[in-house]
């Protein structure tokens, strides 16, 4: 079994959640959105077409761990907004991705590839 060192990545709570959850948090970072708006925004932002089943699964998961919260429904749609812990977790995750990305680029350069 491969054990991961509990270094900087140890505080990244989004490390084990799926890509959909991270994309939802990024989409909610600039303001509350409901399901349809999230799907459109994520498609434009990342070119990823989230299925509605995946979307609701990720929304429920994120809400359960307190990273997003539902707002009062307008019509039949429930908008969601990112919470303060959600914003902190997203920032930490993006920082972690940046570190990994920088290390990867450096190694590519050193390897002359």
């Amino acid at each position, binding site marked *: 079994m491969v054990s991961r060192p509990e270094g900087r990545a140890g505080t990244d709570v989004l490390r084990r959640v799926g890509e959909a959850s991270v994309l939802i948090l990024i989409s909610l970072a600039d303001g509350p959105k*409901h*399901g*349809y708006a999230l*799907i459109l925004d994520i498609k434009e932002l990342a070119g990823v*077409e989230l*299925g*509605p*089943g*995946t979307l*609701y*699964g990720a929304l429920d998961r994120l809400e*359960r761990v307190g990273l997003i919260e539902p707002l009062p429904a307008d019509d*039949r*749609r*429930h908008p969601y907004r990112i919470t303060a812990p959600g914003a902190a977790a997203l920032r930490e995750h993006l920082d972690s991705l940046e570190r990994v990305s920088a290390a990867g680029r450096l190694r590519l350069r050193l390897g002359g590839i």
Partner: protein
Amino acid sequence: MEKPGASWLVRAALGCYPADWRRRHGHEAADLAALLIQDGTPAGSVACSYLAGAARERLVPRPGRRLSTVAYALLVAACLLSVSMGLLARTAPARAASTGHAPERAQCRPTSHELARTETSASGGLRVLVLEAGHGRGC
């Protein structure tokens, strides 16, 4: 334009979710599906996504959900499996016996000729019984 079968397909997929999920998201999920289908997403793909979501919702144990629900479901599945295995195990030897001994059973049944012979040669019913028992099998 929404096809006539599309809403039925999506409704059926949404019906697979647990009741509390449907109370919470059901209407919004149906509206979202209609919008996606209007945008050109195939209804089958929307329904498949909801089906996969429903399966995840039902199979993945949640912290809030009582563990006993999942345990009972597994227990029922195990019981059904063991009952069907038991029935299979019980019927298999009987089936093998019925196919394996069929010729012998045919042999042990006295032919009409034998019966006729015994009837004519016998002085009483006891003679017939002896001849039939002579095959040595409880036919």
